């Protein structure tokens, strides 16, 4: 296909237009979505600092925390990381790398 000088310049202009416009809009879209998240984040910190919503701001001050860890008759009386804690509240992890290794061996490209 032959293209004259005028047509070439026009095509360049259109392509530049799309590139600039698109780039800005994509940036805007990402920024807008993080603004949205920012509004929720701000509300979380406002609630934390609002004594009408949360009277106390430290976990160790929660009266129900004091009750459950009470050294005398608390359910977790041995304290954090004690025997009962380890039984109920702690866990172990499992190596799950084999299946992604198999995927990669089959030609799938992953980001890690």
């Amino acid at each position, binding site marked *: 296909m032959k293209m004259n000088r005028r047509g070439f310049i026009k095509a360049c202009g259109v392509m530049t237009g799309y*590139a600039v416009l698109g780039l800005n809009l994509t940036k805007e879209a990402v920024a807008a979505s993080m603004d949205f998240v920012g509004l*929720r984040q701000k509300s979380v910190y406002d609630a934390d600092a609002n004594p009408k919503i949360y009277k106390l701001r430290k976990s160790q001050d929660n009266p*129900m925390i004091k009750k459950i860890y009470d050294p005398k008759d608390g359910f977790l009386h041995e304290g954090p990381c004690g025997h009962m804690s380890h039984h109920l509240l702690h866990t172990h992890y499992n190596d799950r790398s084999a299946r992604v290794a198999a995927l990669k061996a089959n030609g799938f490209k992953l980001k890690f």
Partner: protein
Amino acid sequence: MKQIEGVMYQTNAPKGIDPDSIFFVQVDATKCQACGNCEEACATGAIQSINDDGIRQVVDPAACMNCGQCLINCPYDAIYEGVSYVDEVFEKLKDPNTVVVSMPAPAVRYGLGECFGAATGTYVGGKMHAALRQLGFDYIWDNEFTADVTIMEEGTELIQRVGEQGKKGARPLPQFTSCCPGWVKFAETFYPDLMPNLSSCKSPIGMLGPLAKTYGAHETETPAKNIYTVSIMPCIAKKYEGLRPELADSGFRDIDATINTRELAYMIKAAGINFNSLPSQAPDPILGDSTGAATIFGNSGGVMEAALRLAYEVLSGKKLSDPTIKVVRTHEGINAADVDVPGFGTVKVAVASGLDNAAKLCDEVRAGKSPYHFIEVMTCPGGCVNGGGQPLDPDVRASLFKSTVAQINKRFRARTVSA
């Protein structure tokens, strides 16, 4: 399939199935417009083009961390959820022999209101508790209580790890947080050599399930076998976590069902409850009361700040007069900070928002070059408030014009130019 707050759901409630075999999110090929937003949002590359037309699919559940960032960034409503317990929860609420327990996460109360017309981020915690009572939940317990328990356990673990350095059999530093189920699966999948660095603490919901069926059962004189626990999350990956076979330490399944913020909004609407006119109500005590340290778990940097509010007081023996520790608050990216604790020294911490950022910190740890004591990771950029189970950002779908231009732009950039 059922439409819930603009998202399609398959209404199956799996039991005793290996969660690694389930697609928790998947693309409806008939709705996919090949724009590629999901692929860009996906940290691992699990969602990718499967044909020349650019139609995307989650290629294998093993590569998917179930975070749902693809879903909330899809402008075409093309990504659906594979698991929903909504029908089963409704049945259990009707059953007089079942004692149904609510366990909502911190971030739910900052998103739920949006489904009822409130401004983005409006706090509706009190109304949420009232709505759960009206739905018929027998105990209004709250996952924020176990966020406080998590701080006690994970903070103590960190102090122990710091103390045992140099001794035989010492657990390694840095210690990573283990609250986020997407991150935990990511570490198990891509960095299994760093599993000893992960805190052994279960997530707050992993703690509330067994506490409800042991301590809660005892305190309320309820037979544990009658208790049905409903985890309510801003998250899709929590559905995977709830199905982990090892989470059965109470002698029963610790977590019976997991729903997300959108599904709770649907249940409230389906039950005909007028959410906006509800009074503000408190949760039930024992496993319901919480602090500001618990609610900030919903934000990236929140677990870190909450843990520091404990670590400072334990390590220094002094009272922290102002609990606000702004330096660790994270909107996006990686945030590193040195926190001076009198009588101890400097606590070096880092917060990663998003798995691509977490991977950078993991590579440092793997290379033995990580200077940190404690690292928090959240899979979703910004934290749980931006979770895959939260109400959708209206802007993502509002303007098809924007997404069309983004699509043209994407194709333009993707064109290969031969020199």
